[in-house]
């Protein structure tokens, strides 16, 4: 069993990633296509269930892709693994600094923006990782 897991190559990662993104935003298009009357007259639990199911499926997809790309990098070239780790370090430090800065700014000036903190942080972390990769690559070139 352990060997099976060790040799599992997580196939179709890109397709799963695209599928998860689509499933995540599909309810938005569905709800957008409904008229106001249809939404008012419908059972709110149905809409809630739709959102929960789509989020659950896409979350499983994202976890699968994360594990897949993680093991792909670990099993692959060691320099790429090193670059990945250093870029993650940059992304994590940047997110932490931005988190404290945003909490300070939002709490003092606009508390309602705290609702968007996670989304902003996620975008900052992804951007910091991409920029970090380019910076670290230059170091080893």
């Amino acid at each position, binding site marked *: 069993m352990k060997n099976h897991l060790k040799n599992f190559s997580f196939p179709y990662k890109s397709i799963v990633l695209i599928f998860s993104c689509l499933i995540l935003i599909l309810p938005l298009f569905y709800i957008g296509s409904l008229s106001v009357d249809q939404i008012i007259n419908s059972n709110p639990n149905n809409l809630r269930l739709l959102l929960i199911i789509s989020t659950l499926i896409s979350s499983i997809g994202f976890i699968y892709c994360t594990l897949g790309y993680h093991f792909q990098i670990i099993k692959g*070239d*060691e*320099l*790429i693994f*090193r670059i990945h780790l250093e870029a993650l370090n940059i992304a994590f430090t940047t997110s932490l600094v931005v988190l404290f800065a945003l909490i300070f700014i939002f709490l003092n000036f606009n508390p309602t923006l705290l609702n968007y903190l996670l989304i902003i942080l996620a975008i900052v972390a992804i951007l910091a990782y991409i920029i970090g990769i380019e910076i670290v690559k230059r*170091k*080893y*070139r």
Partner: protein
Amino acid sequence: MKNVLHILRAEKRYSQDDLAKLVDVSRQTINAIEREKYDPSLPLALKIAKVFNKKVEEIFFLESN
């Protein structure tokens, strides 16, 4: 850490790509090692030493030595 990888590679007439395939890494990794920008892991150093039939310390050594 210093190394004489490029000399050994030239002696054997291996390209960076050939050596990379022999030790199962990318050409960029071999290039980074030769330019002393990246220190290889112990397993990779051992693999490289095995390819050139030498001891690890004959290929990789500290600057002070």
